């Protein structure tokens, strides 16, 4: 069992080179990083800064060209595709910009999807954790709606419930508010903050400073390097902002 001492993420000299040879692209050029349990981290950067590559490697969708990546103390170097898939199933929950829900499939079925691939057998079929996950994101009443019957914010909540359902060590959110208006974005950020307060480690990738301002720690990337890694002393409280907006209107 991983203890609190072991960081959820530890990168040591991680390099990612695409199309090696003369036109080699160094998407990541020797990145060192540690993220501890319970953190809410925002990774910022312009396009081409390497943040997407970072996201793919953190999510075990891709492996570094060089360097070492430990997820929950497990070194992923040299793992097979199948072992990476198992690790994703066990440790990681994904939230995407475009929600990426299965169309014409109810919210409940979408949330149950990761349970199909749970090889560890952590969940008894009789006691599906999916309804509880939907209640945690405030969609207990809409379990049997299909994505086309849900608003963008609600769809993203379903996606967050899907990420939560396997009780992962880490939730990776790639531009989670990119397709949402500012009010809904605040709602989603409030949800992330609430989940983080319950102890869930969350890494957000975003290019919007407004969104990043809700994190406890902001990492800025440029040209494959980390150029800034700063703790935010007073992160914005999304729930409070929403309450203010309500009063104002």
């Amino acid at each position: 069992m991983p203890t609190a001492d072991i960081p959820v993420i530890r990168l040591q000299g991680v390099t990612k080179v695409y199309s090696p040879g003369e036109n080699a692209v160094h998407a990541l050029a020797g990145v060192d990083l540690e993220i501890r349990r319970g953190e809410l981290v925002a990774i910022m950067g312009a396009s081409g800064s390497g943040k997407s590559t970072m996201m793919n490697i953190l999510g075990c969708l891709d492996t570094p060209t060089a360097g070492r990546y430990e997820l929950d103390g497990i070194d992923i170097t040299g793992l097979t595709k199948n072992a990476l898939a198992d690790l994703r199933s066990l440790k990681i929950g994904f939230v995407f910009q475009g929600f990426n829900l299965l169309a014409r499939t109810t919210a409940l079925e979408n949330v149950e999807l990761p349970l199909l691939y749970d090889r560890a057998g952590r969940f008894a079929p009789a006691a599906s954790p999916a309804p509880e996950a939907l209640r945690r994101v405030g969609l207990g009443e809409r379990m049997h709606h299909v994505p086309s019957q849900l608003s963008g914010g609600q769809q993203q909540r379903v996606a967050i419930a899907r990420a939560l359902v396997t009780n992962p060590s880490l939730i990776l959110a790639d531009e989670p508010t990119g397709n949402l208006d500012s009010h809904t974005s605040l709602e989603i950020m409030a949800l992330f903050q609430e989940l983080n307060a319950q102890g869930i480690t969350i890494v957000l990738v975003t290019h919007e400073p407004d969104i990043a301002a809700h994190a406890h720690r902001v990492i800025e990337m440029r040209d494959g390097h980390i150029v800034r890694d700063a703790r935010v002393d007073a992160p914005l409280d999304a729930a409070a902002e929403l309450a203010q907006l309500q009063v104002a209107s």
Partner: protein
Amino acid sequence: MKASALVRIATQSILRNKMRTLLTMLGIVIGVAAVIVMVAVGQGAQANIEAQIRGLGTNMLMVMAGSSSQGGVSQGAATFNRLTIEDAEKLEREATLLAAVSPVVFSRGQIIGGAGNWRTAIIGAAPNYQTIRDWPVDSGSFFSAADLRSVRRVTVLGRTVANALFPDADPVGQQIRVRNVPFTVIGVLTAKGQTAGGNDQDDTILIPYTTARAYLSGHFRIGQIIASTFSPGDIPAAQQEIRAIMRESHRIPDGDDDDFTIRNQDDIAAAAQGTTRVMSLLLAAIASISLLVGGIGIMNIMLVSVTERTREIGIRMAIGARGSDVMAQFLVESIVISLVGGLIGLALGFASGVLLAHLTGWAVAMSPQAALIAIAFSAAVGVFFGFYPARKAAALDPIQALRYE
């Protein structure tokens, strides 16, 4: 991943594209139905022929004029009329394994009587002919040994001839003229139906062979000698015995070939079945081609489906699906399509087989084996043609797949 979950996912995604799935299935439905009907027709024909060959008689052997050779030059089959009444009489006298022997004298001629006239086959035979062919009479009686000895002008009519000349009355006791020679009808045979070759066995009249020789000469030829053994087990030994007696009767020196041929019912059956087997194989092969085309249709649709659902594959992989999970998902989908298509095709095939039998009067034999094979075959089609698209899906890179628009 559990099999039940796989089937559920496959069914869900199939139901999402009802029309497309239905059209894809149609190829398999038609293929399986065609195979079922064709095999049923082929097997029906085979069963029919078997029944007809059994109908020839019981434990029957046939001796036919065979090839003769003169100075080593073969003259081909039935070159000379080498069968004689004496051969038949010698067999009757000397053979120990034969229950009955009868020469068969065959000619055609016009007969007149009752309602009109009729051209038919005239068979001259011994009274034993009835035993060998296992052919009872409807009314009257078959001619007797006394009729044969006394060269009486008596005849037994086949059902077709009786119906043609005497549609309303019992012909027994009536006079008919056979090639202008008057005969008395003493019996009518039961209907025996068609031969494998489509000849009406009932379109014939039977007369004693002595009478045929005396009154209808000019065309007198013994086409064959038929005989029957006491039991089926005696047939091989009886064949040897006939051969020995015939060689003696024809005075064939040792080392020379027989100038006659002996056939038993199994030989005849084998020849007839060989033909129908080739025919039914051919039919089934043609039908299988449509199954193959149906399979290609499935592969086509599965490839489209994989491309369409690239993003879904990416999502599934991101949340922990292995390549093998994705592969299983698509493979099960194509198997479900082809298996359901196979079941519908099976039902359709059976229904059309019954309808065909009803409309055409053909013998149609539905066998459970054919059904099982059709189902197994359609599942195999699903695996075979689903494999390539499923492998393509499993090989997708999750990052690329997630970005796919």
